[in-house]
Protein backbone atom coordinates (compact mmCIF):
# COMPACT_ATOMS: atom_id res chain seq x y z
CA UNK A 1 0.00 0.00 0.00
CA UNK A 2 1.34 3.37 -0.95
CA UNK A 3 -0.07 6.58 0.41
CA UNK A 4 0.75 9.96 -1.02
CA UNK A 5 4.15 11.27 0.03
CA UNK A 6 4.53 14.98 0.55
CA UNK A 7 7.98 16.23 -0.26
CA UNK A 8 9.21 19.72 0.52
CA UNK A 9 11.79 19.92 -2.19
CA UNK A 10 10.73 22.34 -4.85
CA UNK A 11 11.62 20.94 -8.24
CA UNK A 12 10.22 21.39 -11.71
CA UNK A 13 7.64 18.66 -11.31
CA UNK A 14 4.69 18.93 -8.92
CA UNK A 15 3.66 15.30 -8.94
CA UNK A 16 5.68 12.18 -9.57
CA UNK A 17 3.99 8.83 -10.02
CA UNK A 18 6.34 5.85 -10.05
CA UNK A 19 5.18 2.38 -11.05
CA UNK A 20 1.79 3.06 -9.57
CA UNK A 21 -0.77 0.30 -9.73
CA UNK A 22 -4.30 0.76 -8.49
CA UNK A 23 -7.07 -1.69 -7.65
CA UNK A 24 -10.16 -2.14 -5.56
CA UNK A 25 -10.41 -5.01 -3.11
CA UNK A 26 -7.64 -7.38 -2.08
CA UNK A 27 -7.88 -10.10 -4.69
CA UNK A 28 -9.52 -8.25 -7.56
CA UNK A 29 -7.27 -7.68 -10.57
CA UNK A 30 -5.76 -4.20 -10.76
CA UNK A 31 -7.57 -1.47 -12.68
CA UNK A 32 -4.53 0.56 -13.58
CA UNK A 33 -0.90 -0.58 -13.79
CA UNK A 34 2.60 0.77 -14.51
CA UNK A 35 1.68 4.40 -14.26
CA UNK A 36 4.80 6.54 -14.49
CA UNK A 37 4.10 10.23 -14.78
CA UNK A 38 5.83 13.42 -13.93
CA UNK A 39 3.72 16.54 -14.05
CA UNK A 40 5.45 19.85 -14.52
CA UNK A 41 4.65 22.86 -12.42
CA UNK A 42 2.22 25.19 -14.15
CA UNK A 43 1.14 22.72 -16.82
CA UNK A 44 -2.42 21.87 -17.77
CA UNK A 45 -2.69 18.12 -18.13
CA UNK A 46 -5.78 16.26 -19.32
CA UNK A 47 -6.34 12.57 -18.69
CA UNK A 48 -8.62 10.95 -21.23
CA UNK A 49 -9.83 7.45 -21.95
CA UNK A 50 -13.00 5.40 -22.18
CA UNK A 51 -15.27 5.34 -19.18
CA UNK A 52 -14.36 2.81 -16.51
CA UNK A 53 -10.69 2.96 -17.44
CA UNK A 54 -9.68 4.39 -14.08
CA UNK A 55 -9.23 8.09 -14.83
CA UNK A 56 -11.16 9.24 -11.79
CA UNK A 57 -9.53 6.58 -9.64
CA UNK A 58 -6.12 7.90 -10.59
CA UNK A 59 -7.23 11.38 -9.58
CA UNK A 60 -8.58 10.06 -6.29
CA UNK A 61 -5.21 8.49 -5.57
CA UNK A 62 -3.45 11.80 -6.11
CA UNK A 63 -6.05 13.49 -3.90
CA UNK A 64 -5.32 10.97 -1.12
CA UNK A 65 -8.88 9.58 -1.18
CA UNK A 66 -7.80 6.18 -2.41
CA UNK A 67 -4.58 4.33 -1.70
CA UNK A 68 -2.53 2.92 -4.55
CA UNK A 69 -1.84 -0.79 -4.37
CA UNK A 70 1.84 -0.26 -5.04
CA UNK A 71 4.25 2.33 -6.34
CA UNK A 72 5.03 5.84 -5.22
CA UNK A 73 2.97 8.99 -5.40
CA UNK A 74 4.90 12.11 -4.47
CA UNK A 75 3.59 15.64 -4.36
CA UNK A 76 6.36 18.22 -4.22
CA UNK A 77 4.79 20.73 -1.93
CA UNK A 78 5.85 24.32 -1.94
CA UNK A 79 7.20 25.85 1.30
CA UNK A 80 4.62 28.59 1.71
CA UNK A 81 2.45 28.13 4.82
CA UNK A 82 -1.35 27.99 4.95
CA UNK A 83 -2.09 26.00 1.83
CA UNK A 84 -3.03 22.46 0.88
CA UNK A 85 -1.19 20.23 -1.59
CA UNK A 86 -4.33 19.55 -3.65
CA UNK A 87 -7.61 21.29 -4.40
CA UNK A 88 -10.28 18.98 -5.74
CA UNK A 89 -13.20 19.88 -7.99
CA UNK A 90 -15.92 17.24 -8.35
CA UNK A 91 -18.29 16.58 -11.22
CA UNK A 92 -21.24 17.39 -8.98
CA UNK A 93 -20.26 20.70 -7.38
CA UNK A 94 -20.73 19.10 -3.96
CA UNK A 95 -21.40 22.24 -1.97
CA UNK A 96 -22.55 21.97 1.63
CA UNK A 97 -26.22 23.02 1.37
CA UNK A 98 -26.30 24.39 4.94
CA UNK A 99 -23.48 26.85 4.32
CA UNK A 100 -23.75 30.11 2.46
CA UNK A 101 -21.54 30.46 -0.60
CA UNK A 102 -18.74 32.29 1.21
CA UNK A 103 -18.63 29.69 3.99
CA UNK A 104 -18.49 26.94 1.39
CA UNK A 105 -15.47 28.59 -0.17
CA UNK A 106 -13.87 28.87 3.28
CA UNK A 107 -14.41 25.17 4.00
CA UNK A 108 -10.96 23.92 2.95
CA UNK A 109 -9.20 26.76 4.76
CA UNK A 110 -10.68 25.81 8.10
CA UNK A 111 -8.12 23.23 9.16
CA UNK A 112 -5.20 25.45 8.11
CA UNK A 113 -3.19 27.83 10.28
CA UNK A 114 -4.97 30.83 8.82
CA UNK A 115 -6.66 33.59 10.82
CA UNK A 116 -10.39 34.25 10.50
CA UNK A 117 -9.81 37.51 8.61
CA UNK A 118 -7.28 35.94 6.31
CA UNK A 119 -9.69 33.10 5.63
CA UNK A 120 -12.46 35.50 4.68
CA UNK A 121 -10.10 37.56 2.56
CA UNK A 122 -8.89 34.52 0.65
CA UNK A 123 -12.41 33.21 0.13
CA UNK A 124 -13.49 36.58 -1.23
CA UNK A 125 -10.50 36.64 -3.57
CA UNK A 126 -11.39 33.15 -4.81
CA UNK A 127 -14.99 34.23 -5.42
CA UNK A 128 -13.69 37.17 -7.40
CA UNK A 129 -11.50 34.84 -9.42
CA UNK A 130 -14.57 32.89 -10.58
CA UNK A 131 -16.51 36.16 -11.03
CA UNK A 132 -19.14 35.42 -8.41
CA UNK A 133 -18.10 37.99 -5.81
CA UNK A 134 -21.68 39.26 -5.55
CA UNK A 135 -22.93 35.85 -4.43
CA UNK A 136 -21.15 35.47 -1.08
CA UNK A 137 -24.33 35.53 1.03
CA UNK A 138 -26.40 33.23 -1.22
CA UNK A 139 -27.43 29.69 -0.33
CA UNK A 140 -26.29 26.93 -2.73
CA UNK A 141 -29.89 26.12 -3.73
CA UNK A 142 -30.24 29.63 -5.14
CA UNK A 143 -27.49 29.03 -7.73
CA UNK A 144 -27.55 27.52 -11.21
CA UNK A 145 -25.53 24.42 -12.05
CA UNK A 146 -22.79 26.48 -13.68
CA UNK A 147 -22.59 28.88 -10.75
CA UNK A 148 -22.33 25.98 -8.31
CA UNK A 149 -19.49 24.52 -10.33
CA UNK A 150 -17.72 27.90 -10.18
CA UNK A 151 -18.11 27.91 -6.41
CA UNK A 152 -16.58 24.44 -6.39
CA UNK A 153 -13.61 25.83 -8.32
CA UNK A 154 -13.36 28.80 -5.96
CA UNK A 155 -13.34 26.45 -2.96
CA UNK A 156 -10.48 24.46 -4.47
CA UNK A 157 -8.55 27.61 -5.43
CA UNK A 158 -9.02 29.17 -1.99
CA UNK A 159 -6.70 26.62 -0.40
CA UNK A 160 -4.01 27.83 -2.83
CA UNK A 161 -3.17 24.24 -3.83
CA UNK A 162 0.05 23.07 -5.45
CA UNK A 163 -2.19 21.30 -7.92
CA UNK A 164 -5.80 21.70 -8.95
CA UNK A 165 -7.45 18.32 -9.51
CA UNK A 166 -10.61 18.31 -11.60
CA UNK A 167 -12.78 15.23 -12.06
CA UNK A 168 -14.93 15.78 -15.16
CA UNK A 169 -15.94 19.12 -13.69
CA UNK A 170 -18.08 20.23 -16.64
CA UNK A 171 -19.51 16.83 -17.54
CA UNK A 172 -22.93 17.53 -16.09
CA UNK A 173 -23.39 21.00 -17.58
CA UNK A 174 -25.25 22.08 -20.72
CA UNK A 175 -23.14 22.85 -23.81
CA UNK A 176 -23.24 26.64 -23.50
CA UNK A 177 -22.40 26.72 -19.81
CA UNK A 178 -19.68 24.15 -20.43
CA UNK A 179 -18.08 26.35 -23.08
CA UNK A 180 -18.20 29.38 -20.83
CA UNK A 181 -16.63 27.52 -17.97
CA UNK A 182 -13.93 26.08 -20.19
CA UNK A 183 -12.97 29.62 -21.16
CA UNK A 184 -13.08 30.68 -17.52
CA UNK A 185 -10.84 27.81 -16.52
CA UNK A 186 -8.35 28.69 -19.23
CA UNK A 187 -8.28 32.27 -18.02
CA UNK A 188 -7.89 31.15 -14.38
CA UNK A 189 -5.04 28.87 -15.38
CA UNK A 190 -3.31 31.70 -17.22
CA UNK A 191 -3.86 34.21 -14.42
CA UNK A 192 -2.77 32.00 -11.54
CA UNK A 193 -0.28 29.66 -13.19
CA UNK A 194 -1.70 26.75 -11.21
CA UNK A 195 -0.90 23.22 -12.25
CA UNK A 196 -4.11 21.53 -13.39
CA UNK A 197 -4.80 17.82 -13.68
CA UNK A 198 -8.06 17.45 -15.52
CA UNK A 199 -10.00 14.23 -16.09
CA UNK A 200 -12.46 14.15 -18.96
CA UNK A 201 -13.95 11.76 -21.47
CA UNK A 202 -14.56 14.64 -23.87
CA UNK A 203 -11.67 14.75 -26.36
CA UNK A 204 -12.60 18.17 -27.75
CA UNK A 205 -12.49 19.51 -24.22
CA UNK A 206 -9.08 17.96 -23.60
CA UNK A 207 -7.61 19.30 -26.84
CA UNK A 208 -9.15 22.70 -26.25
CA UNK A 209 -7.83 23.10 -22.72
CA UNK A 210 -4.72 21.06 -22.09
CA UNK A 211 -1.13 21.48 -23.12
CA UNK A 212 -0.50 17.82 -22.46
CA UNK A 213 -2.87 14.90 -22.93
CA UNK A 214 -2.46 11.50 -21.34
CA UNK A 215 -4.48 8.66 -22.82
CA UNK A 216 -5.34 5.65 -20.66
CA UNK A 217 -6.49 2.39 -22.23
CA UNK A 218 -6.37 -1.40 -22.20
CA UNK A 219 -7.20 -4.00 -19.56
CA UNK A 220 -5.74 -3.48 -17.05
CA UNK A 221 -5.36 0.10 -18.13
CA UNK A 222 -2.03 1.80 -18.58
CA UNK A 223 -0.78 4.99 -20.16
CA UNK A 224 -1.01 4.30 -23.89
CA UNK A 225 -0.17 7.77 -25.15
CA UNK A 226 1.27 10.96 -23.71
CA UNK A 227 1.17 13.89 -26.13
CA UNK A 228 2.03 17.57 -26.12
CA UNK A 229 -0.86 19.58 -27.41
CA UNK A 230 -1.08 23.10 -28.74
CA UNK A 231 -3.93 22.69 -31.18
CA UNK A 232 -6.12 25.37 -29.62
CA UNK A 233 -9.80 25.48 -30.26
CA UNK A 234 -10.46 25.75 -33.97
CA UNK A 235 -9.21 24.81 -37.34
CA UNK A 236 -7.70 21.80 -38.98
CA UNK A 237 -4.98 21.29 -36.36
CA UNK A 238 -7.61 20.98 -33.67
CA UNK A 239 -9.68 18.49 -35.65
CA UNK A 240 -6.60 16.43 -36.52
CA UNK A 241 -5.53 16.26 -32.92
CA UNK A 242 -9.00 15.14 -31.79
CA UNK A 243 -9.25 12.53 -34.55
CA UNK A 244 -5.83 11.18 -33.82
CA UNK A 245 -6.67 10.77 -30.14
CA UNK A 246 -9.97 9.18 -31.00
CA UNK A 247 -8.26 6.48 -33.02
CA UNK A 248 -5.63 5.96 -30.30
CA UNK A 249 -8.40 5.28 -27.84
CA UNK A 250 -10.28 3.02 -30.24
CA UNK A 251 -7.12 0.97 -30.82
CA UNK A 252 -6.69 0.35 -27.14
CA UNK A 253 -10.32 -0.18 -26.34
CA UNK A 254 -11.47 -3.45 -24.98
CA UNK A 255 -14.33 -4.36 -22.74
Amino acid at each position, binding site marked *: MAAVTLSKTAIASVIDLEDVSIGYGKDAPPVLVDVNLSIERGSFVAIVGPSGVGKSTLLRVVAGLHTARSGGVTIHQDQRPGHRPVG*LVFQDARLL*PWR*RVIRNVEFGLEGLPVSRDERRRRAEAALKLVRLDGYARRWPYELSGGQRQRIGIARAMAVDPDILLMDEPFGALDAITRHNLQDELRRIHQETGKTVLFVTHDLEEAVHLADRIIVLGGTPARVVRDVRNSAGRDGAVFRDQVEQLRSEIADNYSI
Partner: protein
Amino acid sequence: MKTYNKIALSALGVIVFLLAWEAVARSGVVPARLLPSPSAVPAAFLTEFNSGTWQAMVLASLSHYLVGLSLGTFLGVSFGTAAALWGKWDAFQAWVVRMLRPIPAIAWIPFAIIWFGVSEGAASFLIALTVFWINYYASYAAVRGVDKDLIELGYAFGQGGLIPRLFKIILPGALPGILSGLRAGLGQGWMTVVAAELFGISGLGMRMMEASGLLATHIVVLYMVTIALLYGVSDFLFMQVQSRVLSWQR
Protein backbone atom coordinates in the same frame (compact mmCIF):
# COMPACT_ATOMS: atom_id res chain seq x y z
CA MET B 1 -54.94 28.59 -1.09
CA LYS B 2 -54.07 31.86 0.58
CA THR B 3 -52.76 31.82 4.14
CA TYR B 4 -55.67 33.97 5.24
CA ASN B 5 -58.23 31.53 3.84
CA LYS B 6 -56.43 28.60 5.43
CA ILE B 7 -56.52 30.20 8.87
CA ALA B 8 -60.19 31.10 8.44
CA LEU B 9 -61.03 27.52 7.43
CA SER B 10 -59.12 26.04 10.38
CA ALA B 11 -60.94 28.37 12.76
CA LEU B 12 -64.25 27.43 11.17
CA GLY B 13 -63.45 23.74 11.67
CA VAL B 14 -62.83 24.25 15.39
CA ILE B 15 -66.02 26.28 15.79
CA VAL B 16 -68.16 23.70 13.97
CA PHE B 17 -66.63 20.93 16.09
CA LEU B 18 -67.40 22.79 19.34
CA LEU B 19 -70.93 23.69 18.23
CA ALA B 20 -71.73 20.09 17.28
CA TRP B 21 -70.40 18.90 20.62
CA GLU B 22 -72.44 21.50 22.49
CA ALA B 23 -75.56 20.54 20.53
CA VAL B 24 -75.20 16.84 21.35
CA ALA B 25 -74.56 17.62 25.03
CA ARG B 26 -77.59 19.96 25.27
CA SER B 27 -79.97 17.74 23.36
CA GLY B 28 -80.08 15.39 26.34
CA VAL B 29 -79.41 12.35 24.16
CA VAL B 30 -76.37 11.64 26.32
CA PRO B 31 -76.52 12.24 30.11
CA ALA B 32 -74.55 15.37 31.12
CA ARG B 33 -72.36 13.30 33.45
CA LEU B 34 -71.08 11.22 30.55
CA LEU B 35 -70.59 14.07 28.13
CA PRO B 36 -70.05 17.53 29.62
CA SER B 37 -70.83 20.42 27.31
CA PRO B 38 -67.89 22.55 26.20
CA SER B 39 -69.60 25.63 27.59
CA ALA B 40 -69.08 24.17 31.07
CA VAL B 41 -65.31 24.29 30.61
CA PRO B 42 -64.73 28.06 31.12
CA ALA B 43 -66.54 27.94 34.46
CA ALA B 44 -64.49 24.92 35.49
CA PHE B 45 -61.38 26.79 34.45
CA LEU B 46 -62.25 29.80 36.61
CA THR B 47 -62.81 27.63 39.69
CA GLU B 48 -59.60 25.71 39.16
CA PHE B 49 -57.66 28.85 38.36
CA ASN B 50 -58.93 30.85 41.35
CA SER B 51 -58.03 28.06 43.74
CA GLY B 52 -54.55 27.99 42.18
CA THR B 53 -54.87 24.30 41.33
CA TRP B 54 -54.67 24.79 37.58
CA GLN B 55 -51.42 26.76 37.74
CA ALA B 56 -49.87 24.30 40.19
CA MET B 57 -50.77 21.32 38.01
CA VAL B 58 -49.54 22.94 34.82
CA LEU B 59 -46.23 23.91 36.44
CA ALA B 60 -45.76 20.43 37.90
CA SER B 61 -46.44 18.71 34.57
CA LEU B 62 -44.32 21.21 32.71
CA SER B 63 -41.35 20.47 34.94
CA HIS B 64 -41.72 16.67 34.48
CA TYR B 65 -42.08 17.26 30.78
CA LEU B 66 -39.07 19.50 30.36
CA VAL B 67 -36.75 17.32 32.43
CA GLY B 68 -37.90 14.12 30.72
CA LEU B 69 -37.87 15.67 27.27
CA SER B 70 -34.38 17.15 27.50
CA LEU B 71 -32.89 14.02 29.03
CA GLY B 72 -34.59 11.68 26.56
CA THR B 73 -33.74 13.85 23.58
CA PHE B 74 -30.10 14.30 24.52
CA LEU B 75 -29.53 10.61 25.22
CA GLY B 76 -31.60 9.46 22.24
CA VAL B 77 -29.73 11.66 19.78
CA SER B 78 -26.36 10.71 21.27
CA PHE B 79 -26.96 6.96 21.27
CA GLY B 80 -28.65 6.99 17.87
CA THR B 81 -25.78 8.96 16.35
CA ALA B 82 -23.15 6.74 17.98
CA ALA B 83 -24.83 3.57 16.72
CA ALA B 84 -25.04 4.99 13.20
CA LEU B 85 -21.39 6.07 13.24
CA TRP B 86 -19.66 3.00 14.63
CA GLY B 87 -20.56 -0.38 13.17
CA LYS B 88 -19.03 -2.29 16.07
CA TRP B 89 -20.99 -0.39 18.67
CA ASP B 90 -24.09 -0.79 16.50
CA ALA B 91 -23.68 -4.57 16.40
CA PHE B 92 -22.94 -4.71 20.12
CA GLN B 93 -26.14 -2.93 21.11
CA ALA B 94 -28.44 -4.06 18.28
CA TRP B 95 -30.12 -6.94 20.15
CA VAL B 96 -30.33 -5.07 23.44
CA VAL B 97 -32.19 -2.35 21.54
CA ARG B 98 -34.48 -4.92 19.91
CA MET B 99 -35.38 -6.38 23.28
CA LEU B 100 -36.00 -3.07 25.04
CA ARG B 101 -37.66 -1.18 22.22
CA PRO B 102 -41.12 -2.87 22.19
CA ILE B 103 -41.70 -2.28 25.91
CA PRO B 104 -44.04 0.71 26.19
CA ALA B 105 -43.31 3.40 28.77
CA ILE B 106 -46.37 2.50 30.86
CA ALA B 107 -45.01 -1.01 31.32
CA TRP B 108 -42.09 0.57 33.16
CA ILE B 109 -44.40 2.22 35.71
CA PRO B 110 -43.85 -0.49 38.37
CA PHE B 111 -40.09 -0.08 38.06
CA ALA B 112 -40.34 3.69 37.94
CA ILE B 113 -42.14 3.57 41.29
CA ILE B 114 -39.74 1.03 42.80
CA TRP B 115 -36.69 3.02 41.70
CA PHE B 116 -37.89 6.57 42.17
CA GLY B 117 -40.94 6.27 44.45
CA VAL B 118 -44.12 8.15 43.60
CA SER B 119 -42.05 11.19 42.73
CA GLU B 120 -41.23 13.76 40.12
CA GLY B 121 -38.27 11.61 39.11
CA ALA B 122 -40.54 8.69 38.23
CA ALA B 123 -42.65 10.82 35.88
CA SER B 124 -39.59 12.36 34.23
CA PHE B 125 -38.06 8.91 33.82
CA LEU B 126 -41.10 7.60 31.95
CA ILE B 127 -41.24 10.64 29.70
CA ALA B 128 -37.51 10.41 29.00
CA LEU B 129 -37.92 6.75 28.06
CA THR B 130 -40.62 7.47 25.47
CA VAL B 131 -38.73 10.40 24.01
CA PHE B 132 -35.47 8.45 23.98
CA TRP B 133 -36.64 5.80 21.51
CA ILE B 134 -38.17 8.26 19.10
CA ASN B 135 -34.96 10.28 18.98
CA TYR B 136 -32.76 7.22 18.91
CA TYR B 137 -34.34 5.90 15.72
CA ALA B 138 -34.74 9.30 14.07
CA SER B 139 -31.08 10.19 14.64
CA TYR B 140 -29.87 6.76 13.61
CA ALA B 141 -31.68 6.98 10.29
CA ALA B 142 -30.70 10.63 9.77
CA VAL B 143 -26.99 10.03 10.39
CA ARG B 144 -27.02 6.93 8.19
CA GLY B 145 -28.63 8.96 5.46
CA VAL B 146 -25.97 11.67 5.29
CA ASP B 147 -24.63 11.93 1.75
CA LYS B 148 -21.41 9.88 1.55
CA ASP B 149 -20.12 12.24 -1.12
CA LEU B 150 -20.15 15.10 1.38
CA ILE B 151 -18.12 13.03 3.81
CA GLU B 152 -15.64 12.36 1.01
CA LEU B 153 -15.56 16.09 0.36
CA GLY B 154 -14.52 16.50 3.98
CA TYR B 155 -11.61 14.11 3.52
CA ALA B 156 -10.56 15.84 0.30
CA PHE B 157 -10.37 19.21 2.10
CA GLY B 158 -8.65 18.10 5.28
CA GLN B 159 -11.83 17.86 7.36
CA GLY B 160 -11.87 14.07 7.66
CA GLY B 161 -10.96 13.82 11.34
CA LEU B 162 -13.71 12.70 13.72
CA ILE B 163 -14.47 16.12 15.21
CA PRO B 164 -14.67 18.18 11.98
CA ARG B 165 -16.41 15.30 10.20
CA LEU B 166 -19.00 15.04 12.95
CA PHE B 167 -19.65 18.73 13.49
CA LYS B 168 -19.15 20.14 10.00
CA ILE B 169 -20.72 17.42 7.91
CA ILE B 170 -22.54 14.60 9.67
CA LEU B 171 -24.57 16.53 12.24
CA PRO B 172 -25.53 19.43 9.96
CA GLY B 173 -26.41 16.91 7.26
CA ALA B 174 -28.51 14.85 9.65
CA LEU B 175 -30.13 17.88 11.25
CA PRO B 176 -33.44 17.82 9.31
CA GLY B 177 -33.99 14.18 10.31
CA ILE B 178 -32.90 14.76 13.90
CA LEU B 179 -35.30 17.69 14.16
CA SER B 180 -38.25 15.60 12.94
CA GLY B 181 -37.41 13.16 15.71
CA LEU B 182 -37.36 16.01 18.21
CA ARG B 183 -40.75 17.16 17.02
CA ALA B 184 -42.30 13.70 17.29
CA GLY B 185 -40.80 13.38 20.77
CA LEU B 186 -42.32 16.71 21.73
CA GLY B 187 -45.82 15.33 21.07
CA GLN B 188 -45.26 11.84 22.47
CA GLY B 189 -43.79 13.46 25.58
CA TRP B 190 -47.07 15.20 26.39
CA MET B 191 -48.98 11.97 25.94
CA THR B 192 -46.68 10.23 28.38
CA VAL B 193 -47.04 13.08 30.90
CA VAL B 194 -50.65 12.11 31.46
CA ALA B 195 -49.94 8.38 31.68
CA ALA B 196 -47.04 8.95 34.06
CA GLU B 197 -49.10 11.09 36.43
CA LEU B 198 -52.16 8.86 36.54
CA PHE B 199 -50.71 6.89 39.44
CA GLY B 200 -50.55 9.87 41.75
CA ILE B 201 -47.63 12.10 40.83
CA SER B 202 -48.83 15.67 41.07
CA GLY B 203 -49.75 17.16 37.69
CA LEU B 204 -52.39 17.33 34.97
CA GLY B 205 -52.79 13.56 34.79
CA MET B 206 -53.30 13.19 38.54
CA ARG B 207 -55.89 15.97 38.57
CA MET B 208 -57.76 14.25 35.73
CA MET B 209 -57.82 10.99 37.72
CA GLU B 210 -59.12 12.80 40.80
CA ALA B 211 -61.84 14.56 38.84
CA SER B 212 -62.97 11.44 37.03
CA GLY B 213 -63.22 9.63 40.38
CA LEU B 214 -65.74 12.29 41.41
CA LEU B 215 -67.44 12.12 37.99
CA ALA B 216 -66.49 15.81 37.53
CA THR B 217 -66.19 15.24 33.79
CA HIS B 218 -66.13 18.95 32.95
CA ILE B 219 -62.86 19.21 34.92
CA VAL B 220 -61.48 16.22 33.04
CA VAL B 221 -62.30 18.01 29.79
CA LEU B 222 -60.68 21.21 31.10
CA TYR B 223 -57.39 19.35 31.59
CA MET B 224 -57.69 17.60 28.24
CA VAL B 225 -58.01 21.01 26.63
CA THR B 226 -55.08 22.26 28.72
CA ILE B 227 -52.83 19.46 27.44
CA ALA B 228 -53.97 20.09 23.87
CA LEU B 229 -53.07 23.77 24.24
CA LEU B 230 -49.71 23.07 25.86
CA TYR B 231 -48.87 20.68 23.04
CA GLY B 232 -50.05 23.17 20.45
CA VAL B 233 -47.88 25.92 21.90
CA SER B 234 -44.76 23.75 22.19
CA ASP B 235 -45.18 22.40 18.65
CA PHE B 236 -45.73 25.92 17.29
CA LEU B 237 -42.65 27.28 19.06
CA PHE B 238 -40.61 24.32 17.84
CA MET B 239 -41.69 24.91 14.25
CA GLN B 240 -40.60 28.53 14.53
CA VAL B 241 -37.15 27.51 15.70
CA GLN B 242 -36.94 24.74 13.11
CA SER B 243 -37.76 26.95 10.13
CA ARG B 244 -35.04 29.32 11.30
CA VAL B 245 -32.44 26.61 11.79
CA LEU B 246 -33.23 25.02 8.43
CA SER B 247 -33.45 28.24 6.46
CA TRP B 248 -30.85 26.83 4.08
CA GLN B 249 -33.42 24.41 2.75
CA ARG B 250 -35.31 25.33 -0.37
